[in-house]
């Protein structure tokens, strides 16, 4: 697969500009990390870390998102899973699923529950690497992104899931990461493989304790074989002041399907970076996301869908409602390469500013090099419909409830779209809790 990747022309503006002050900060972080994790070395990654530009505001990809939070004090964490405070290792109540629990990047065997079945290989990544099931090959993303290269060097563990051809994972795998305590520099690396005509549902759920700080740098690599199907529900619900950077790098073979549904409930600083490559004809991708930041939260969704082969489809919808002084960023890249004729690509990004101080930066970026394709995109930033609010008030519906009805109407299609129904319910429940809404009790009996 990597040779196919290399044969593709490099598209898009290549403005890889290093900034001396940022490079110095990046190297200082690397030095501190090396002191904390002396055993983690990777020559290829080291080379990248010195040559790739450390993110700063003058790089287009980081124009709207400050990375200062990464240059603060970090400290080695010895945190282990602590159920003394009544925290459930399974974040989704009532869900019958396999479970892998990580605390500050460290696998917690006692609370995990791995699938054991013919054709299903699931274990911590460290074990899979030891057994030679997977190599630490730096992906495309790591060769272009400094933070990803950092992950390539320092990530010691994560979830490894490999589904053999034709096998269907009978229950979802929930990968729960918990960030605890002060200043933990956390790296996680998940490797997911779904074989030909195989299927799996994976939920990645991030949580953090009230006092948690530091950062979480998580890279998920995935490959979906011919006709395979991988569904990824990605939920971020972090208290504290954690900087959370989550990258997905997915390769899809012919006629495969990949769906990723991102729900950001809360997070001090969250950046999602999706890279999806459609490497075989007939592949289909769905990527949706909802974010409802409040206070001074910063939620950034960057997505790249790379149509490399003909007859592929992609459908993307991201919706944001921004409260208080929060900030949202959406950047949706769609490449349609010269060979990708008959591509059908759709992108939508709709945002509501629920406060005068909230900020949204949105940018659709379509680069189309094939001439027989259908690509559409739309982007809106607006406010609550005052007429609709008055209409509801004039019927005796309170302001808060009227707004929550409009919120519901706006994001329901995304929130209902998680592959695992229990995830949809739990995300709604936590959002209602965060924003103090009445529970969204859709009267199903009506």
């Amino acid at each position: 697969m990597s040779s196919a990747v290399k044969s593709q022309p490099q598209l898009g503006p290549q403005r890889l500009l290093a900034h001396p002050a940022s490079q110095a900060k990046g190297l200082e972080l690397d030095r501190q990390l090396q002191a904390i994790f002396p055993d983690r070395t990777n020559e290829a990654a080291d080379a990248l870390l010195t040559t790739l530009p450390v993110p700063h505001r003058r790089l287009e990809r980081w124009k709207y998102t400050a990375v200062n939070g990464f240059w603060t004090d970090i400290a080695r964490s010895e945190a282990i899973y602590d159920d003394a405070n009544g925290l459930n290792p399974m974040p989704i109540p009532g869900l019958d699923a396999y479970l892998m629990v990580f605390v500050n990047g460290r696998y917690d065997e006692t609370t995990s529950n791995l699938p054991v079945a013919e054709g299903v290989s699931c274990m911590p990544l460290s074990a899979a690497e030891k057994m030679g099931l997977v190599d630490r090959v730096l992906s495309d993303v790591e060769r272009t992104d400094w933070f990803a290269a950092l992950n390539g060097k320092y990530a010691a563990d994560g979830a490894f899931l490999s589904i053999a051809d034709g096998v269907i994972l009978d229950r979802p795998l929930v990968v729960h990461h918990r960030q605890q305590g002060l200043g933990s520099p956390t790296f996680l690396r998940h490797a997911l493989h779904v074989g030909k005509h195989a299927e799996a549902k994976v939920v990645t759920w991030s949580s953090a304790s009230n006092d948690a700080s530091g950062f979480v740098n998580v890279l998920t690599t995935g490959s979906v074989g011919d006709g395979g199907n991988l569904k990824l529900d990605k939920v971020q619900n972090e208290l504290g002041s954690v900087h959370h950077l989550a990258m997905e790098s997915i390769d899809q073979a012919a006629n495969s399907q990949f769906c990723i549904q991102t729900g950001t409930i809360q997070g001090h600083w969250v950046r999602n970076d999706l890279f999806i490559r459609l490497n075989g004809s007939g592949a289909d991708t769905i990527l949706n996301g909802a974010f409802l930041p409040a206070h001074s939260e910063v939620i950034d969704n960057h997505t790249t869908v790379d149509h490399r082969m003909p007859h592929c489809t992609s459908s993307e919808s991201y919706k944001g409602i921004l409260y208080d002084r929060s900030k949202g960023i959406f950047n949706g890249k769609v490449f349609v390469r010269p060979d990708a004729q008959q591509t059908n690509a759709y992108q939508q990004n709709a945002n509501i500013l629920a406060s005068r101080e909230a900020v949204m930066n949105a940018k659709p970026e379509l680069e189309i090099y094939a001439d027989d394709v259908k690509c559409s995109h739309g982007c809106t930033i607006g406010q609550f419909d005052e007429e609709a609010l008055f209409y509801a008030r004039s019927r005796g519906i309170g302001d808060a409830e009227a707004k929550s009805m409009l919120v519901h109407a706006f994001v329901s299609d995304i929130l209902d779209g998680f592959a695992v129904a229990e995830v949809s319910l739990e995300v709604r429940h936590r959002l209602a809790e965060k924003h103090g809404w009445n529970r969204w009790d859709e009267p199903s009996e009506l």
Partner: protein
Amino acid sequence: MLKINQLKASVVGTPILKGLDLHIRPGEVHAIMGPNGSGKSTLASVLAGREEYEVSEGTVDFDGQDLLDMDATERARSGLFLAFQYPVEIPGVSNINFMRAALNGKREHAGLDPIAAKDFLNLVKEKASLVELDGRLRDRSVNEGFSGGEKKRNEIFQMAMLEPKFAVLDETDSGLDIDALRIVAHGVNSMRSPDRSFLVITHYQRLLDYIVPDFVHVLVDGKIVRTGGKELALELEERGYDWIKEGVVS
């Protein structure tokens, strides 16, 4: 029921209502007619609590309460209802959930528990049949894709569900064909009762053939300039508004 005294209101600095007096007793149906721009819809908006309208003078007593002191939600919960001239579409919010929230808001105000699902459904069925609103429209998003007539019937359905003490119908006849007009009027008439009052705002006399008022007022330039019985509406239909305007000037 409703006592308006010397009401003056403006929108973005332009005075619209210029000292309006109107007293409506329980059980009465009052009609307000008047030429375009005379302030009819402004009166409806001010009564319902639309915030863009600024009341500079006057009082409105609603069943012993100071109406102007309440926000739109409180007014509705206290029993005031406005049937909109242009009902608003709310995509993604089902008509039925919208009504349930409205009804439960009113019940909460009255210290009652939320209505049971079964009772609510029965109530919906009963009130919807009053205006021949079929199930398809009840389940759809609020007013989304409704025809003009369906929107107005939906307004009357909502009124019937909420059983207000006092209802303002703002040009409910506009955009209605004769069949829809008859259905809407039937819905209103079946709700007439000794303790419920209506204020019917209309441009044309036609609606008043179906909803027969006790009093007809003519609003010109922000004031009521003439009051009469239902025959005044017929006279207006025949002679237009000019003779009244001239009478006001002289």
